């Protein structure tokens, strides 16, 4: 099975609750991601926990795409 990336997303600079999602690909700095109906830009990605089985655990910081 291909790795599953469980990602904790936090939005910087606004009162957004953030999100948790399983993704097929890891987020990368500069990527645009859609959470709900809004788009964001990835500012930072770090490993949150050691991998277990096929699961990778990441934390990504975002900013709203509209502010580019």
């Amino acid at each position, binding site marked *: 099975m291909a790795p599953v990336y469980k990602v904790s997303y936090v939005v910087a600079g606004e009162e957004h609750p953030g999100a*948790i999602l399983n993704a097929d690909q890891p987020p990368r700095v500069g990527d645009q991601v859609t959470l709900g109906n809004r788009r964001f830009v990835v500012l930072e990605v770090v490993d*949150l926990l050691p991998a277990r*089985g096929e699961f990778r655990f990441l*934390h990504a910081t975002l900013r709203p795409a509209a502010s580019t």
Partner: protein
Amino acid sequence: MDLVPLLQKVELFDGLTPHELQEVAALCAEQVYHPGDTVTRQGEPGSEMYVICEGWVEVIPGMPPGSGTPRAVVNLGRGQLIGEMTLVDYGPRSASVRALSEPTIVQAIDRERFTELCEQDYHLGYLVMRNMAADLSFKLRHRNLTGR
């Protein structure tokens, strides 16, 4: 619909054999929600947990009276669990969960039947409980990071 490929990508079922995944799949019932629909309501008794297959939900915990408008503490997407605490503590729903996207599709798993399966198959039961603890830990870490 073969649910095994979907369940394989859910952390709760990490490590289960194909046969065990089939047993879990047999307990699943698909439910479809639309934006604004309530999946669970805070304070109500819960007898099911849910795996999000498609779409997004927002989790809104209950607040003491007079403490302002309740706000979402996290949005959850594909592969995440809703209502899993009831599997562990049999308590009422700790939060309300509302669908955000069109459609939001979940697989509902009955607590009693799932508990029976865990008790019949200790390998499955051990892995599910370990993975559930890991999932709750991940949610706590996320919550801590949103406050930094």
